C-alpha cells in the first residue's frame, strides 16, 4: 500500500536515502536503528513533515509526495502523547478531521478509556495518556499508523500492556503500521518485517527470524542481538577456527571468511558429548560468568578466540560453572551463518 522510490531527505549535514521501501496492506514493519540513524526523519518524510529532496512516496499507487501532512491521512504517535491540554479526552478524540462520535465511542470502548472521556490530559497517567493518543490517531481512520518510539516513557508493566494493545489494534482496525524503535525486542515482537537503518540508509529488510538467523552483514547481526563472529580458515576441504576443526552447513569457496553464531545457539557441556547430533564440539576454558536478568552470559576462550554463550540459571547451577573451568561448546553446523 505504501511504496517509496529513490527518497532523499537532507537535514543539515545529515542525508537520508532510501532507494526502495514497501509496506503491504495490514503489514507491521519495525524500523530498528541506533540514535541519529535517521529513523525519525524517515517517519517524518512519510508523514510529510520533512520535505523530500528527491524521490516519490505512493499510497495505493497515488503519488502523495507533494501533499501537505494534513491531506495525507497518515497518523503519527510520538514518545509523548501530545494530548491538547486545553481539551478534555473526548474533545481530543474528536479533534481529527475524519473523527466522528460513534466511531470514537467504539474505539474508546476497545482501548478501555471510556471512563476517562470527561477528564483533562493532566488528570491521566502516562499509560492512559498514550492510550488516548493512540485512540485519537485511529479515530481519523488513517491509511497508515506511524509510531515513533511510543513506549519509551512507559514502565515495564505498562509496556507489556501496550504490546497486547497494539496487537489488538492491528486485529480490530486492520491498518498497516510502522514502528520506529532502538529496542530490539520491541522491534522483533510485533513485526512482520524489520528494517535496519544505519547512517541514513536502510541496510536490511527481512522477517525477524531471517534477520536474527541470517543477517546480511555484521552490522545487522550485531544490531539484531548478541553475536559471535568466528574467523575461519579453509585448508583443503576442511575448515578451521584457529587449530580447531569446524563443520559448516555448506561448502565455501574462500580461503578466509567469517561465520556468525548467536550465543543462544551454543550449549555448554562439562564433558565431550558422545551421541549428540550437533557436529561441532569445541574445547575451551571459561573466562567469565556474568549473571543477567533473563539469561546468564558465559565467556569461553577457544584457541585464543572468546565466544559468548547464553545459559539458563538451571544449567549454570547444575554445571557449577566457574572461571578457569574447562568446558565443551556444542552447536549444530546449521547454527552457523556464513557472510557472503
Amino acid at each position, binding site marked *: 500500500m505504501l511504496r517509496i522510490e529513490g527518497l532523499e531527505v537532507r537535514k543539515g549535514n545529515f542525508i537520508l536515502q532510501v532507494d526502495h521501501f514497501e509496506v503491504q496492506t495490514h503489514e507491521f514493519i519495525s524500523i530498528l536503528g541506533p540514535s541519529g540513524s535517521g529513523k525519525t526523519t524517515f517517519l517524518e518524510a512519510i508523514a*510529510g513533515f520533512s520535505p523530500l529532496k528527491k524521490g516519490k512516496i505512493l499510497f495505493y499507487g497515488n503519488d502523495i509526495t507533494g501533499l*501537505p501532512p494534513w491531506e*495525507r491521512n497518515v497518523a503519527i504517535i510520538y514518545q509523548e502523547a501530545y494530548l*491538547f491540554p486545553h481539551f478534555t479526552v473526548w474533545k481530543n478524540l474528536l479533534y481529527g478531521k475524519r473523527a466522528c462520535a460513534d466511531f470514537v465511542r467504539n474505539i474508546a470502548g476497545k482501548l478501555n478509556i471510556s471512563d476517562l472521556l470527561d477528564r483533562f490530559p493532566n488528570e491521566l497517567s502516562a499509560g492512559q495518556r498514550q492510550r488516548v493518543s493512540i485512540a485519537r490517531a485511529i479515530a*481519523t481512520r488513517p491509511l497508515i499508523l506511524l509510531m515513533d518510539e511510543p513506549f519509551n516513557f512507559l514502565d515495564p508493566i505498562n509496556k507489556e500492556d501496550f504490546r497486547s494493545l497494539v496487537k489488538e489494534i492491528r486485529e480490530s482496525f486492520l491498518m498497516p503500521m510502522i514502528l520506529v524503535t532502538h529496542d530490539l525486542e520491541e522491534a522483533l515482537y510485533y513485526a512482520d518485517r524489520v528494517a535496519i537503518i544505519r547512517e541514513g540508509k536502510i541496510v536490511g529488510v527481512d522477517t525477524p527470524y531471517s534477520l536474527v538467523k541470517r543477517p546480511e552483514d555484521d552490522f545487522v547481526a550485531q544490531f539484531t542481538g548478541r553475536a559471535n563472529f568466528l574467523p575461519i580458515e579453509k585448508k583443503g576441504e576442511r575448515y578451521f577456527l584457529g587449530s580447531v576443526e569446524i563443520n559448516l552447513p555448506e561448502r565455501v569457496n574462500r580461503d578466509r571468511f567469517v561465520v556468525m553464531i548467536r550465543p543462544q545457539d551454543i550449549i555448554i557441556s562439562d564433558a565431550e558429548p558422545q551421541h549428540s547430533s550437533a557436529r561441532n564440539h569445541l574445547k575451551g576454558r571459561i573466562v567469565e560468568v556474568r549473571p543477567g536478568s533473563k539469561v546468564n552470559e558465559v565467556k569461553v576462550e577457544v584457541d585464543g578466540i572468546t565466544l559468548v554463550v547464553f545459559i539458563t540459571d538451571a544449567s549454570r547451577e547444575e554445571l557449577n560453572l566457574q572461571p578457569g573451568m574447562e568446558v565443551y561448546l556444542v552447536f549444530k553446523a546449521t547454527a552457523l551463518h556464513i557472510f557472503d
Partner: protein
Amino acid sequence: MKRGFDLWIALLSALGLFFLTMPVLVLIFSTSPESFFFAIRDREFLGTLKVSILSATFSSLFVLLLGTPISYILARKTFPLKGILEHLVDLPIAIPHSVSGIAILYFFGRTSPVGQMLNIMGIKVYGDMVGIVLAMSFVSAPYYIASVKEGLSVVPREYESVSYSLGRGRAFTFFRVILPMARSHLFKGLILSWGRALSEFGAVMVVAYYPMTATVFIYERLESLGIKSTLPYAVIVLLLSGGLFVTFRVLCCRYAQNRRS
C-alpha cells in the same frame, strides 16, 4: 560567607522594594478627601480618562492583530536576517518616547504620502484619537510581541505535527491548538501592552495634545497650577490604572489556570 551574601541580597531587595513602592504609597495618601472628590467630579478630567482608557484598549487590540503574526514568525520560523527583525521589533523600547511620537507624526502626518492617503480615506492622525492609538501601539507593541513570542516558542512542535497528521491545516492548528496553549502569555502581553499604552505620555503629547489623555491633562495641570493642585488627579489616575492593571492580571491568571494551560 553564604550568610553574608544572603544578608546583602535581603538588604538590597528591601531597599529596591522601598524605592518602588513608597513613592506610590505616599502619593495615595497625599491628598485630602475633599479635593479627591472634587477632582473625581471634574468633567474635563473624566473626559481625558475616557480618552486614555479607550485609546489604550484600541491600541491593545491593534497590537494583538499585528503583533501576534510577528510573534508567531519569530517563535516558529527560521529565516535569514531573523536576528535583525528581532532587534527592529524591540527598537521602540530604546527610542525616547518624544522621538517615537515625532517618527509617528512624520510618517503618518499630513505632509507624508501615507498621511495623504489616510487623509483621502478621511482618517486624521495629528490631533486625533487615531494618532493617540498609533503612538500608544508603537511604544507598547514590543512588550506584547516579546510575551507572545515566549509563549509560542515553548509549545513543542510535535503538537503542530500531531494536529496536521489528524487532518487539520495550518490555520485550524494555529487557532485551536497553538494559540490556546500560549494564551497565558497572550493575556500577559495584552495586559502589559495595555498598561504601557495607558501610561504613555511623551509620544502621545507629540502626536495629539488634543483630544487630551489623562497623562497630558496631568502634565498641563502641573505646568499651569503646580504640584499641589495636580495631586488629587494623579491619585485618581494611579488608583484607576493600577487597579485595572492588577484586576486584569488576577482575572487572566485565574482564567488561564482554569483552562489548564
